[in-house]
């Protein structure tokens, strides 16, 4: 970015990306859909970090939220329902130079893709994951999602959902090798920005659950939470998400939570009285699987020839 270097020479980057450089197709989400806010926040983040659009990849599954890559002017991969993680892993495995983001929905990640989710945490690849959780299936028009709370009325459960919801935070925190888990909300863009920025800067699998309003099919889900700050529990810590003091003041319930404490993180994530917002857990010491993938890259044709001939020698008659 622009700035004065120590010897007072003005540093001007060769190319400076503006917000426009990250704008893809015009979003086709419903008016008031929380996904719009996430898009704006992410575009700002890319601009502020000056991520070269050609070095940035957004990977998604299927769902309203999974349309995300189309609305970015970076590289994108809009694949199959529930299958964003394996694709993102394949991309990052031998292309550590790319910034890889995953946009997934609650049905996408926690239902059809749940198997991949568990393993994605375990692989701990350097990915930034945004779980856009509206507690309902949007694209297929209002079916129960695994995160729908008991009693949520939907087209598949007109009398109300009967099963307890999966808590994506406690679930992720329960998987071995967990690396970064945070929660934020679409109605608090500054908090979302700070959270996603921390996630992006974290080396490893950073999992951010974004409470996302779907006014079209699940308008009630976050009604209270979005309008009554008392229902939230803001997590604060010097190692946590840093927030503007004025914004912080709006939250009457603040908890000093050290994100390096896994047991405490699980406890806070499981709270139902007050919904935590902030960084629940971060561990920077776990190895990243993509570092393993990067260790023997770039063999020349000559090296490959030698390797093949060594093999043929072993099998020569």
């Amino acid at each position, binding site marked *: 970015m622009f700035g004065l270097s120590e010897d007072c020479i003005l540093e001007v980057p060769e190319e400076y990306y503006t917000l426009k450089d990250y704008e893809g197709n015009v979003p086709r989400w419903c008016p008031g859909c929380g996904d719009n806010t996430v898009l704006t926040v992410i575009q700002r983040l890319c601009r502020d970090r000056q991520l070269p659009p*050609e070095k940035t990849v957004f990977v998604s599954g299927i769902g309203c939220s999974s349309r995300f890559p189309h609305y970015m*002017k970076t590289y994108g991969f*809009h*694949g199959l329902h529930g299958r964003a993680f394996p694709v993102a892993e394949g*991309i990052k495995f031998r292309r550590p130079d790319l910034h890889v983001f995953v946009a997934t929905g609650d049905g996408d990640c926690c239902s059809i893709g749940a*198997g991949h989710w568990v393993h994605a945490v375990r692989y701990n690849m350097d990915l930034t994951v945004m779980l856009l959780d509206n507690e309902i299936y949007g694209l297929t028009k209002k079916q129960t999602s695994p995160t729908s709370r008991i009693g949520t009325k939907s087209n598949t459960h007109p009398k109300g959902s009967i099963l307890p919801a999966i808590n994506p935070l406690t679930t992720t925190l329960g998987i071995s090798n967990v690396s970064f888990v945070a929660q934020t909300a679409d109605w608090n863009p500054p908090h979302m920005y700070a959270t996603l920025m921390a996630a992006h800067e974290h080396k490893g699998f950073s999992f951010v659950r974004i409470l996302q309003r779907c006014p079209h099919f699940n308008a009630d889900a976050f009604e209270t939470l979005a309008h009554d700050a008392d229902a939230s529990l803001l997590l604060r810590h010097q190692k946590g998400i840093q927030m503007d003091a004025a914004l912080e003041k709006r939250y009457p319930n603040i908890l000093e939570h050290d994100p390096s404490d896994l047991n405490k993180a699980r406890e806070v994530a499981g709270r139902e009285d007050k919904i935590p917002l902030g960084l629940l857990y971060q561990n920077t010491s776990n190895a990243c699987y993509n570092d393993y993938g990067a260790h023997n890259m770039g063999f020349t044709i000559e*090296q490959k020839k030698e390797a093949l001939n*060594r093999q043929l020698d072993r099998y020569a008659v």
Partner: protein
Amino acid sequence: MKVVMSIKNILSKVTSSDSGKAVTLDEHIIEIVSDSGEGAQKAGQSFGALCAKMNNGTWTVEIIPAEVKPPARSKAGASGIRIRIGSKAVTNMGDEANVVIAFNEQVLYGRIDQKAYKAGTILLLENKWATHIDPEIVSQYTQAVEEFRTMGMIVHEIPMEEECQKIVENPALGKNMWVLGLLCGIYDRDMSIAEAQIKHTFSKKSANVIEKNINLLNAGRQYAVTHLDFQYNIPPGSDTSPKVVMNGNEAIGMGTIAAGIEVCSMYPITPATSASHYLAEFFESAGGLVHQAEDEIAAIGFAIGASYAGKTAITITSGPGMALKTEFLGLAVMAEVPLVIVDVQRGGPSTGLPTKVEQSDLLYALYGQPGDAPKIVMAASTIEECFHFVIVARQLAEAFRMPVILLTDANLATGVQPFPRPEFNPDWVAPPVDQSPWNPEVRPYQWDPGTGLSPRPIPGQKNGMYTLTGLAHDSNSKVAYDAAINQVSSDNRSRKIATFRSSLKPPVVMGNDEGDLLIVGWGSTRGAIEEAVGKVQKMGGRVSSIHLRFLSPIEPGLPELFKRFKKIMTVENNYGDKLDGSIITSENRRYSQLAWYLRAQTLTDVDFYSNVHGQPIRPGSIVNLIKQELGIS
């Protein structure tokens, strides 16, 4: 001069007064059968490699029980290996065995059911069971020996463990190398090569272990020379050009290295797994890595992700795994992502016959996706092709920007055969991805209206940014809200198949290009078909054969060729109804897979011979079939 002799002739020779003098033969089929874990396969593989090194044609195929550890001394437990050796190239496992070495008599019953032996087959049988403390085992043994003799087999009872005990304390470890020595004696093998083979086999073991095994080897040979009254000589071929010997799965793995592929993602499934075992050990030293995914869906998704990002990727699987990959396969077609998928076919729908041979995934490979999903489908018919076809598949996948399915099967996967040592060609290796800026005027799916081909931007390339999608899309990769665009993009994806087909040559006909019967095959049946067709041609039968390597697109020239034969028939290892004159009629008959496909493609009445016994089709049964069709007795 080489003489082909019937078993009767051989017997009269070996029992004649000049016994001890080797009988010269064109070829022989040997089996070593044991309970699993007794090392029969190691002995057989060593023997096969040793014969290949002496320049004999060789084909070895494993005899695998369905369970990992079936009960000992049981009919279902047969675990072992068949080795067919010849003076010329050997292309298949052949018919009934000539010599069988067995560690117990019960395992032979399963092989007898599979018609692996005949009257005249020589059985060399471990005789320790005759004096076993369990009287039941003793009676089973004596009864079996009697039964085998009534069947016409020539049984030699041999104190294998007793002999081994003279050299090692625990004869169970090492008996197999004694048996290797026994075979070296019977077939007069070069002992310096045999010793070198043992050193190679036990290269990770101590000098002491190697020495013991060499002692066992020599003792086994000495036993054959002094105690057996027969010896065979199978002269080597004259072609001494450099060769390599390996099984089909190793060839797939080595082809992956030769193709310069950088990512193999897989999920274990028999009989595909050993290809990834091979790669797991050696891929890193060639600049590649194996990723063991959480399931087959993730395995192909991972490979597609790597390929999208500009790395060449392969995924290797078998039937049930192939089924799981379907949705992603369709995405690769739709979004035009290059990818090599190897399907080492196994028997049956569902989990079926994991370790047995079948060629039942052809129609699935061609049509197994929802919607219209054109892709290249090819099939290897030899071990050598397993190696080269991975390279070809990689090149085609990238040139045509589509998935390429390479079909092999359990017969090729475990069959071991020597083939000419490949000479490295730099074109085999995928060039590193060009990361120079993309011309922003060029769209991500800028289909050439003539060929359907389009260039491909890769992440990291400036100005090339696009979002790949499995939704119907226009040439800008924009989601097609106007459904008519689907017609245009589908046309273009399909056109690529025609473009590739225009570069293919018609298949080579073995024999005359007209006659009474044309046999059409694909995949691993080639060796058996060509051997059988060759035999009948020598008898004067007007029969020819072709073998298809490309199934999608289908190779050109077939309708014209078919017109020049009175009858067309496929020979395949998959299911087709046999006409029974009552329930199954010509109207409701379900055709075997290639026959079905050829009928549709060529509007020709194509008949078939097929089965799903779990065994490779033998040349003998194809000879019988052709003779019956041609009315030769």
